[in-house]
Every structure is written in structure tokens, then in C-alpha cells.
């Protein structure tokens, strides 16, 4: 894949929010949101529909004004005076592609290359089209494109601004086929590699898990913030899953009192979930105890909670309450 931009590595905080909030009259879109995101970080912003994600993106991209709190975007304080300068340093891919249907793909991109006042707009358009694998469709009218292709053009448009220090991507892989999703993931990895901060709003939890250095879960207020692994550790007890060829005659005699094993439960025939304080200490002890008891061990492994489990644990009650 062709390199899109050549940026120097930056350090420090690219995007920060402190007690940020936005109200529309009585309705609270989001409230008391605080985080700091470094340059070159891919930050996942997750939450149910209506959680305030899009409004947060619009606020941070200097489209709308916050009603409380402060923010710094691409090194600039989010103020009325800095709006235009901030927008010159960011790129936004909104949830809806928002393309001019009567214009071709190239004409849509040429327009935005002009809006970013790029030095060599034609070359830049050629490169971003190559990056999203649309070079041979440049003269197709956008009104006749499929949803997935429109999504790719929208991504290409967000990649146009080679001065962008922060890129906001709102559901970038929505409507894309698996191969196109992989291409988008490679582009996001490429942005990270060049020190561009990516603020990724997505419903695809496996995508967030695969791409994001850290994630935040929003449901009007921030419910959690951290690396996916840290959130898992924070929310779920560490467990070992033991499978044997048949049920143990007396599992209590095998598991009780073992080092680092805090409890256990039977989850089916020959299936045991052990709550442990330290998996690396517990696993050898459990193995030895099972062998000593003469059990036919099929497997011993760590129980893996997905980001989806974290999401359901933190947000599930809100969504159930909304329904």
C-alpha cells in the first residue's frame, strides 16, 4: 500500500478533554468527559446509540461548542478563535459519507483538496485514491456508488489533509466487505505508524480490540477508560478453565487449598471454572493436582473475556434500561 503522508513523529498530548460536556437545552448529549490521548495513539470511542459519541466528535472537531469543560485538539485550546486553525490540523470522516452525488469521486476529492489548500491537489487525490484502492473509479459519479464505495471515498477524503495531526473516524468500516475492512485497518495502522492520532468511533468491538491502544466507553458519561486488557482485569476475576475427559469424582479434593486458587465451580460434565489470584502460579499447581488425582486432562487454559464482555458489563444495563 502506498504511503499516504510523511509526517515527523510527535510526542505529547494530541487530544485532551477535561470535564467536557454538551447540552441542548435540557437534554444532556454527553457530560463530564475527560481523557488525554497521545500522538500516534489509536483511541477507541465506544458506546450505544445515543450515547453522545457523534456529538463528542463534533465538539472535538470544533464544529459545535461545548457547554462545559475544556479541550485541547492538535495542540490548540478549543476556543472560538482557534476553530479554523484546529480544523486545519484535523481530518474528520463523519458517520454519513456526505458526498456530492452529481460530482465524480475525483471532483469530490478535488473540492476538499482545495478546502485544505493543499500544495499539489491532483497528486494528493491520486495518492489517497490509490490508498483506498479506488484509482480506477476516479471518474464515477458518487451518486451511483454502493454504500461501501461511498464509505471508502469518505475515508479517502479524510486522508486528504496531510497536515492532520488528529483524524476522527466515525464508523469507518460500516458497510464494508471483509477485504475492504482489512484495508481500512491497514490504513489506520499506517496513520498510527506516522504519529497521527486516530479517534475511532465504532460499534465493532472486535475492531476496537484489534486496533485500539486504549478505549473509552461512553454512555452520556464516561463509564470506563483504559487498555482493553486493563478493563478486562478490572472487571472480571481471573479464571482458569479445566477440561477433563469425564467428571472428577471429588473436585473439592483436587482444587481446594491449591496455591492461588480462590474458588471453583462445575460448568458442565468435565468442565471446571477456577477463580484464581494469579494464573501463572495457579496453572502448574492445578496441573500437578489433576495428574496426581489420576484425571484425564484435556486442557487447562485461561478464560479470555472479550471487549464485548467488558462492554456488556458496563453498558448492558443502560441499554436494557433504555428499552
Amino acid at each position: 500500500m502506498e504511503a499516504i503522508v510523511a509526517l515527523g513523529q510527535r510526542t505529547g498530548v494530541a487530544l485532551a478533554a477535561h470535564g467536557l460536556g454538551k447540552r441542548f437545552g435540557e437534554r444532556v448529549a454527553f457530560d463530564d468527559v475527560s481523557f488525554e490521548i497521545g500522538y500516534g495513539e489509536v483511541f477507541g470511542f465506544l458506546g450505544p446509540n445515543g450515547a453522545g459519541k457523534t456529538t463528542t466528535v463534533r465538539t472535538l472537531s470544533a464544529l459545535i461548542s461545548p457547554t462545559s469543560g475544556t479541550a485541547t485538539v492538535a495542540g490548540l485550546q478549543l476556543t472560538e478563535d482557534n476553530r479554523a486553525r484546529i480544523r486545519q490540523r484535523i481530518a474528520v470522516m463523519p458517520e454519513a459519507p456526505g458526498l456530492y452525488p452529481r460530482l465524480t469521486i475525483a471532483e469530490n476529492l478535488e473540492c476538499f483538496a482545495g478546502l485544505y489548500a493543499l500544495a499539489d491537489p491532483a497528486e494528493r487525490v491520486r495518492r489517497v485514491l490509490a490508498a483506498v484502492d479506488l484509482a480506477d473509479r476516479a471518474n464515477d459519479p458518487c451518486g451511483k456508488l454502493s454504500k461501501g464505495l461511498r464509505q471508502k471515498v469518505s475515508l479517502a477524503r479524510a486522508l486528504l489533509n496531510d497536515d492532520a495531526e488528529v483524524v476522527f473516524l466515525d464508523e469507518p468500516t460500516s458497510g464494508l466487505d471483509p477485504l475492504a475492512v482489512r484495508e481500512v485497518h491497514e490504513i489506520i495502522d499506517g496513520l498510527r505508524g506516522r504519529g497521527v492520532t486516530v479517534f475511532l468511533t465504532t460499534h465493532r468491538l472486535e475492531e476496537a480490540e484489534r486496533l485500539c491502544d486504549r478505549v473509552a466507553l461512553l454512555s452520556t458519561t464516561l463509564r470506563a477508560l483504559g487498555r482493553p486488557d486493563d478493563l478486562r482485569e478490572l472487571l472480571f476475576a481471573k479464571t482458569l478453565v479445566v477440561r477433563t475427559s469425564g467428571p472428577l469424582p471429588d473436585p473439592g479434593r483436587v482444587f481446594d487449598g491449591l496455591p492461588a486458587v480462590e474458588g471453583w465451580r462445575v460448568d458442565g460434565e468435565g468442565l471446571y471454572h477456577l477463580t484464581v489470584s494469579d494464573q501463572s502460579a495457579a496453572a502448574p499447581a492445578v496441573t500437578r493436582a489433576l495428574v496426581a488425582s489420576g484425571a484425564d486432562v484435556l486442557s487447562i487454559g485461561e478464560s479470555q473475556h472479550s471487549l464485548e464482555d467488558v462492554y456488556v458489563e458496563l453498558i448492558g444495563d443502560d441499554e436494557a434500561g433504555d428499552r
Partner: protein
Amino acid sequence: MNAARTRIRAIYRKEFREYRRNWSIVSTMAAIPLGIVTFPLILVIALPASAAQGIGGDPLVILLGIPAIVPSIMAGYAIVGERVQGTLEPLLSTAISSTELVLAKGLAALVPSLAISYGMYAAFVVATEIFAQPAVAAAVLPWPYVVAQLAFTPLLAVLSIWIGFAISARVSDVRVAQQLSAMSVMPALLVAYLISFDVIHMTLALAIVIAAVLLLLDGLGWRLVTAAFNPERLITGTK
């Protein structure tokens, strides 16, 4: 070329391409001038030479309907069209300022409107000179009127554009915006028609007053439209 000019040019070119490929705008922009110019032209060509003395007022003033209505069609589409297509948010996410956007869209509506208006005047003048009785042509085309006409055209077009923008930013349907914009320039047209039928007798002093009022309204319109152009309201639909 500085960044602001590059951005204005980018929007101007985009608008032009969109208008050219929008059949509803193209057909309206063709039909309205033809409709406005046809009736006075037939009337003037059909007049006998003996009627020249009786021509009071200025049939040419009727043609001011073109710079009043044609730009309102484009200006009415300008903002609400972006909202309906979902293109306003990506557009406003760039570094373009409200002033630059209003200016670019204003120019994109003004230039074709002036071209059409002046083109239609030229066609009217040429057709009158060729097909009307010489005495009628002389009575219909006194040069001071033609010059005044040329001066009023951009002033009226600019006013029509600001009114169109103000309406386009407030409504959520393209056709409603265009119809309201066209209707809102009717008071100016009424004055033109009253002059045309000699109900208001045109004098140099009156021409200067009208030009001054239009100029004042144009300046006021620019200030009001740029001040009222609120990206947050346009994107979120809130007050």
C-alpha cells in the same frame, strides 16, 4: 494564491459543477428568463410605429425579474441542498470559515445570474433593434435606461442571493427554500413593474435613490447572512 482564495475557488468550482448537472436548476434557470423576456419582446415587436409616442415607462425594466429570480433559485438551494445531501458537516469540518463559504456560494450564484441577465438584455435589445419598428425601438431603448438597467442588475441579484441564503439556512426542504426565495423578491419586482407601466415615473433622482437603497440592502444583507450563518445550528438543527 492564499489559502482563503483557494478555498473560495474550490467551493465556487464545486457549486458550478453541481448547478450544471442539476436538471431542475438548469431547467428553471432557462425557463424563467425566457418566460420573462418573451412577453415584452412580443409586445414591442408587435407595436406599430404610431404607438411609439404612447410608450410610457420602460418595458426593459420588466427584465429586472431575471436578476431578481434566477439567483434566488440557486441561493435557495445553496445551504439546504448541502444539508439534504449530508455534505454540510464534512464541508464545515474543513478550515473554511463561514464568511468564505458565504462568499464562495454567493459568487457561484451571482456569476451565472449576471451572465444570463445580461445575455437576455442583449438578446432583447438586438431583437428589438432588428424586428421592432425603428420609432418603437428608439422609444423602448433610451440609453440612460439601458445604463440604469445594467447598474440595477447586480445590485438586485446580490440582494436576491442574500435573501435566498437566509431562507435556505432556515428551511429543510430544497423546493420550499427555492419557492420562498423567489417569492421574497416579489416586492422588488413589483416596484420594477410599476416603473415599467409608468405608475412610478422614473427620473434620474429616483434611479439614484433606488440604486442607493439596493446598495444599502446588499451591504446589510451580507452582514446579516454572515452573522446568522451558524454552523452549529445548521448541523444539529438546534436553535
